[in-house]
């Protein structure tokens, strides 16, 4: 009885409501969790940098509905993302899809790191060679007190 009341209630809400999240969940099932995972990768196109999971906008609600329906039909998460991509373009993903010019920002930082690292390595080695080496004569042995002091200084 209570179930059916709730069901009608929710049905009413779907038709009338500005209550986006209500329509969807009772208690989380495996499907809900899958919906959430996918929803977090898709952008709400009418919001400001928000994914469709966190957004309360009606459009985001509809899109979550689409994700849910397609999951029920047995589509894989990749299929669903592909579907949204084909309709909205790259903008719909929370990360730039890895193709074309977008590769720039995917590999750019690592190229910088690698290139900078190599350059730095070469430069430092060059400086090391250019630096006059300290006299090679063995230092006289230290007494215990001096050794301890030296150790302290080296540590700090």
């Amino acid at each position, binding site marked *: 009885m209570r179930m059916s009341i709730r069901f009608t209630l929710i049905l009413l809400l779907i038709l009338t409501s500005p209550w986006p999240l209500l329509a969807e969940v009772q208690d989380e099932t495996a499907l809900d969790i899958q919906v959430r995972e996918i929803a977090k990768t898709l952008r709400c196109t009418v919001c400001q940098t928000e*994914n469709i999971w966190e957004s309360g906008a009606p459009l985001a609600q509809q899109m979550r509905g689409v994700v849910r329906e397609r999951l029920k039909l047995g589509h894989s998460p990749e299929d669903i993302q592909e579907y949204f991509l084909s309709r909205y373009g790259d903008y719909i993903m929370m990360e730039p899809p890895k193709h074309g010019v977008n590769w720039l*920002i995917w590999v750019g930082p690592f190229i910088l790191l690698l290139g900078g690292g190599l350059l730095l390595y070469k430069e430092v080695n060059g400086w090391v060679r250019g630096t006059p080496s300290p006299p090679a004569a063995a230092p006289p042995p230290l007494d215990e007190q001096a050794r301890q002091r030296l150790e302290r200084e080296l540590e700090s």
Partner: protein
Amino acid sequence: MIIEIGHFSVIIALVLSVFGMASSALALKTRNPDWARSGRMALTLIFSLLSIGMLSLVYSFIVRDFSVLYVANNSNSKLPFFYTVSAVWGGHEGSLLLWVFILSVFSTLAVWLHWRTQPTIMPYLIAVECAIIFGFLCLIVFLSSPFERLLPVPLDGKDLNPLLQDPAMVMHPPMLYMGYVGFSIPFSFAMAALFSGRLGEEWIKVTQRWTTFAWMCLTTGILLGGYWAYYELGWGGYWGWDPVENASFMPWLVGTAYLHSVLVQEKRKMFKVWNLFLIIVTFSLSLIGTFLVRSGVLTSVHSFATDPERGLYILIFVGSVIGIAFGALILRSNKLKSQVEMDSLISRESIFLFNNLFFLVAAATVFLGTLYPLILETLQGAKVTVGPPYYNAVFMPIALGLLFLMGIGPYIPWRKASVASLKKSFSIPLLAGAVMVVVLAITGIRNLYALAGTYVVAFSGMAIVLDFGKVSQLYAQRNSSNIFKGCLSAFTANQRRYAAMLTHIGVLVLVIGIIASTIYQTEKVVSMQVGDEFTIADYRIKLTELHEVEGGNWKAEEGVFQVFDGATLLTELRPQKRIYNATKTPTTESAIYAINMGHIFLTMPEVSPEGVAVARGVINPLILWVWGGGIIMGLGVILNILRPRKKDE
């Protein structure tokens, strides 16, 4: 009337900033110290006048004078008193005024503090400070004045953005701005050094505490912003890689690189150009950060205003600061060639260089990620989103590299490290990391980031503890005291170093908090009526009551949720769905219960008239470590600033 006094004061301050620049130029030309003194007076007067400007605006907010446009837009007759003051920086115009006010405070302080010890560069310093103040005041006076009147006078104000009606938001902007503006002091000293040709280590030593102070303010500001986002925006996280957050993170990253690399110049007199470059970039990013947020270029929750004139002015202003600064650096570069002496690739100075590389690449990543959508849209008309998944994949590995270097750097000697000393310093930390990873893997943790993060944290943490332990023991032996006194005397004798290590420990604690609370967050969304319950992790959450409550300027639906662990009642949480009367904006007020260093975080995003509530529960394990780590970092920095002055400083 009052607001006109403020307006007039700010205009006079603008005129005085021109006078300050002129008198500094005359001081240099005539070599008459009186001109420098009048420059100092101009700066002091600017500070007094801007104080009057600020006070007049604060006053107008307190008396709720809605004939002032800015007050009418950002306040309301029902706005609580506490927030009427913070509403001063709730919008574009007022926050710019706050920025330049803080700048006038800092620069006046700097000029008076260092007047005696740095007489020759003072005119340069005053000129640079006045120029920056001039740039900001032009913007305020001509393009975005908070002193405009509104006719006819509205009956009531539009109200402060409800999201900003929050204690953390009272403190967040001033802290952030104190950080941004704080970097203007080392920047101005650096520019003074460039213009005057006095390019020694002096300016770095003089500004070391300023830099540390600025860094602390910026760090605190960023963390406060995260804390605010955490409980006010209601999605259960504290960092969303939002462009506005990124805008404050970029100067932090480069500023941190600068903070470290000046140590090399202090000790070894190398990398002069590099340090100048870093401070110029840091301050430029502070300016860019301010304007990115305040110009509305970025489409994000925080940006309010869009105005092409302002945008153009800002572009020209930031462009000239960067252009002049780098121009001076290039013109002086032949004078800056320092003899680089490097004994080995494995030395502290070389680790510092790699530290800088990582910080800069990290900053470049954030910069690229933030601006890429804008660039792509301008060039190709295509739109993309660069969101958290991107940063998790690209930024995190770089951050792990930095944490690893953090474990190595402080324990590698200057000039050259021998293999034996490396073994001595790092074999135990490396082992400690491995042991931790094995232990975690056995307990069932398989996430690669979690394991890598743990390894790095254990390694770096062990290196710090080991070194401090050894040195403390030496001190204890020497003074034949116990180990606790040894720790104390080791700390006080090397306060600069060990205060920094305390900050490093804070970073490690923070990182553990971040790893645990992001990777092991659990979340559940449930719709329920009074009497229903749901379980999340080990906790049972039951909705016992749903009622309306009313605050001064808002109404809310409040849910009363009992949280059970097994059969024991832990607490009652009362999340709200608020509607603010004036703006009709809804906000979700989260309710939080701290347990086992983590949080049970509950919000109620929707309530239907029929009494069905949507509840969203989030468990954030170890999240208290994030804030605790921040506090430890701050403590370390304070101890660093308050250290007794040594002879060579």
